[in-house]
């Protein structure tokens, strides 16, 4: 019974503040999964680790004397090139094994990023200053304490999503992406190169998670060991939202963020992890297609 009481007597305003902040991040990663999955059928598990190192990249670029904004720009460019690069040399070749291949390859890429990070930047995560104000400065909003950085996070994720939607709607590459996601065969017949689309979606998803990673770095340290945790939660968000729906995966991110914050407030850290994974498995078993997707997208 005491567990039930704990679950109910939670500071919901605070859950809203934390949940929305992290939910935006999970949503951004989930959007990255969605971009790649819908256009190529590949699942790229490395996005979580990419997110975790993005703050470190900015710190290093600043050490070279770049101011914050140019450093972020260069970091985004590098992230995009890195994404395109590993799509070519790691994910694409593994397609020979079927769609399970890129998934296994992306696990390999995750390991390389996580271990390479330790070699380049050392094992200790580094503090990253918030974009405005003092570290951990918070304001009262909707009854809870919101970190100033939370507004930056939510704003940046919203802005990047809007940019992405504009890009997909009005540019020729975006239109090609949409054509490929609707009908790979039809797109190919119209002269679209699906392999190029796959490469650019990995690049685009890399840029997206790097924006999210830089935005969250002031709250969770740059280069902390949260890549896998975030990656799995975003994976859950993407499935909850139905991989095929752009809006769905963002809502999925928010739901997972709120659920995570609620469990963490009600239970100890360890038990909230166990409960979250347990719920995740249950939801997958009860409703494998998620709550927003039309049906499971299958590619052969």
């Amino acid at each position, binding site marked *: 019974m005491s567990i039930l009481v704990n679950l109910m007597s939670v500071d919901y305003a605070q859950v809203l503040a934390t949940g929305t902040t992290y939910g935006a991040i999970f949503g951004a990663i989930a959007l990255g999964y969605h971009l790649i*999955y819908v256009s190529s059928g590949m*699942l790229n598990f490395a996005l979580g680790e990419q997110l975790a190192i993005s703050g470190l990249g900015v710190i290093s670029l600043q050490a070279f004397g770049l101011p914050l904004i140019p450093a972020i720009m260069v970091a985004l460019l590098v992230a995009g090139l890195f994404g395109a690069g590993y799509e070519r*040399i*790691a994910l694409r*070749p*593994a397609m*020979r*094994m*079927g*769609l*399970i*291949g890129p*998934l*296994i*390859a992306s*696990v*390999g*890429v*995750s*390991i*390389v990023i*996580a*271990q*390479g990070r*330790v*070699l380049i930047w050392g094992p200790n995560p580094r503090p990253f200053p918030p974009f405005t104000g003092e570290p951990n400065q918070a304001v009262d909003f909707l009854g809870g304490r919101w970190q100033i950085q939370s507004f930056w996070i939510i704003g940046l994720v919203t802005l990047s999503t809007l940019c992405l939607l504009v890009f997909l709607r009005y540019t020729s590459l975006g239109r090609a992406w949409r054509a490929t996601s609707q009908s790979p065969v039809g797109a190919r017949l119209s002269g679209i190169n699906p392999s190029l689309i796959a490469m650019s979606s990995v690049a685009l998803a890399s840029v997206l998670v790097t924006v999210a990673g830089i935005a969250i770095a002031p709250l969770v340290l740059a280069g902390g060991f949260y890549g*896998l945790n975030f990656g*799995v939660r975003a*994976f*859950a968000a993407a*499935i909850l939202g139905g991989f095929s729906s752009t809006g769905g995966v963002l809502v999925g991110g928010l739901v997972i963020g709120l659920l995570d914050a609620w469990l963490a407030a009600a239970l*100890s850290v*360890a*038990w909230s*992890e*166990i409960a979250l*994974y*347990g719920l*995740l*498995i249950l939801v*997958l*078993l009860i409703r*494998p297609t998620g709550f927003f997707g039309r049906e*499971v997208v*299958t590619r*052969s």
Partner: protein
Amino acid sequence: MRRGAAWSSWLSPAVVLLLVVAFALTQGSFYRLQLGTLAGIYAIAVIGLTLLFGGAGQISLGHAGILGTSAFITANLTVSHGWTPLTAMVPAVAGATLMGLLLGWSALRTTGHYLALVTLAFGLMFSEFGRTVFSAGWYGVPPLTLGPLDLGDSQRMFVAVWAVVVASLVAVLLLVKSRFGRSLAALRDDPVAAAASGIDLARTKIAVFAIASALGGVSGWLFAMYQGSVTETSFSFMLSFNLLIMAVIGGLGSPLGAIVGSVFLVVVPEFGREYEDFRLLGYGVALLLVLGLLPGGIASVGRVLADLVLRRSGSATPAVSGK
């Protein structure tokens, strides 16, 4: 391949057995025997994974949870309740198999990437559970005894573990050639056609998860006695990933490759102990190299070379052609 299939299926177990006996007789070094034993323990689990990935086109990213279940049961029963290691094997392997049945049941409802997430979540949940509930761990797991035979001696333990490896190899090779093995291949290549041909997909999927998990259970049981202690950190997601890497590097779908992959991943890093920091990075790079350049794994090197020599066009075909 057709011709001589009868003797060639006995060839690889025989070669492995010969190498093992030779190694056990010539290597007095405690350290090398320990390493060889560890490689063998992993090989048993990886043989199961090979059947799962390569044989049936299913995936498990949480296999450490299966090994962990068995090791936790073994350690708990022997240390806290005074069971002998041999009797503890029954509930340990049964527990692991039960977990496998549950995962197999979830594989009925989910496929592909969804199944990957279910198994990953299972693995993460297990390691978090172990860290929370069994944070003290168990120390002093007694060595295995078979009647008068004490396997506490590292040489005997080595031989015993590798006997199990060879037995698993033979069992899986026979299984792949059986009616069940053919239905696995059908399930992997085209589930719809397989179902249309009268194969019970549900039973086949659950069965292959159960078999892979039973082998994982044997591996976890042996691990508990090999280590002498079971702690919360032994079965993290990194172990799941390592087992996956072993299966891929050796050659997905090849039970012999499972052994090659396990030995490779345990033994090769020992040649560069001063580069310990690079070990995991090396695992990741090796995985990507094999996926990119040698889809059949190390086990296919011979075939690829033979193809090159005979100038046949097109190298070895990939072992897996899942959906």
